[in-house]
């Protein structure tokens, strides 16, 4: 299971793009797509290159008016695990 020490990046088949129709980001992959919430889109945007999961939490915690770090950490881990389940994330465990 993905932890804070893992390194992650989006799988090559996953493409993140903005959808003008909805004002949301979508993650496209073969013959399917996921509409992302704004917070999920920020996490996915940080995964376009390889990063430490703790680094993603750091980056999001640094944003103004952010939620408590523990909440951000839980959200990041939950979303990344969903991506991994769908085969949309490359993970190197620590």
């Amino acid at each position, binding site marked *: 299971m993905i932890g804070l020490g893992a390194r992650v990046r989006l*799988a*090559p*088949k996953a*493409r993140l*793009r903005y*959808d003008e*129709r909805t004002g949301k980001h*979508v993650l*496209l*992959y*073969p*013959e*399917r*797509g996921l509409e992302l919430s704004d917070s999920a889109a920020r996490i996915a945007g940080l995964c376009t290159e390889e990063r430490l999961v703790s680094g993603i939490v750091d980056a999001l915690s640094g944003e103004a008016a952010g939620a408590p770090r523990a909440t951000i950490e839980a959200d990041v881990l939950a979303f990344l695990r969903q991506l991994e389940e769908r*085969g949309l994330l490359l993970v190197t465990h620590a």
Partner: protein
Amino acid sequence: MSAETEAPRPYTLVAELTYRCPLGCGYCSNPLELARHADELDTSAWAQVFADAAALGVLQVNLTGGEPLVRPDLEALVAAAHGRGLYLNLITSGIPVDAARLGRLKAAGLDSVQLSIQDTDPRGAAWIAGRDDLEAKLEVAAAVRALALPLTLNVVLHRGNIARVAEFVALAERCGAERLELANTQYLGWALANRDALLPSRAAIDGARAEAAAARARLRGKMEILFVRPDYYADRPRACMDGWARRYLVVTPDGLVLPCQQALSIAGLTFETVRARPLAAIWTDSPALAAYRGDAWMPEPCRTCDERGADFGGCRCQAFALTGDAGATDPACGLAPRHALVREARARADAAPAALSDGAPPIRLRRFRPVA
């Protein structure tokens, strides 16, 4: 759910670039009257289709055919669609094989490849497609993986190959496929013409399904395995195309805008071409696309059925092919007044020989190979 008065947003464009194909699969989804659609849209007309589809909200494009590789301008088409931000899936037999070309297609913006496998048994492949290309397809699969493109293997299941699900799984593992689609033939068009030779028995389908489930459990996290039953053996109809002219739009080689790849088989509907009117206008107000949108067209028992929002009343083309009325309840549904039509076909399949043998009945191969 009430009738949809406004055209919904399409998400996927199925671009049938050509009906030319080196293979002759007896379950092909192309129309029976292929030669009528031989006047193909050129590069710039397709580029306009991609631009218009993107403006309508389309996110995914399936580049299919026939065999899209026979289009010499495929690289240019990929580049044009990629330029509109579309996610591009190449649906191919892999034939004619050209590894260098796959590299050029990736460079132009191709996102994924779905490669068809007819059979692992050369005799079976020759029976269903008129030829055996397995070795060449393995080369294509290797080239796709060497380019780090995602690879899906697609096997259309029928009586001739349904006993070999374990072999198809092993092949997909060997190829490094990320996804394996084991999709039973649905009995429309060419497949309906060959139905008595292709429809498996219930026992064969149950066996294949169990085999697929075991492989899915074993390969979880490594390979996704999809198993699609024939709707003849489901008690409820398929949610065909996720509803008529709702999420998918199909453009034929000659520019007709359809709600699905079989819709030309329905007599009495006039489909429009992008040669005469822009795609967005056709999608929005073409009477043929409006004909079975929403649920206002539904007869009983669909009209008051709790499941009409899940299956959209099933397949209109199948209703037409089997009953002569495209507005009838899909006979695949156990509640349909004409369900006996499907039950009788199943009974014949159960009585037929289990697998392909030396005395296998000949099937009608799809033939259409005009020069480019």
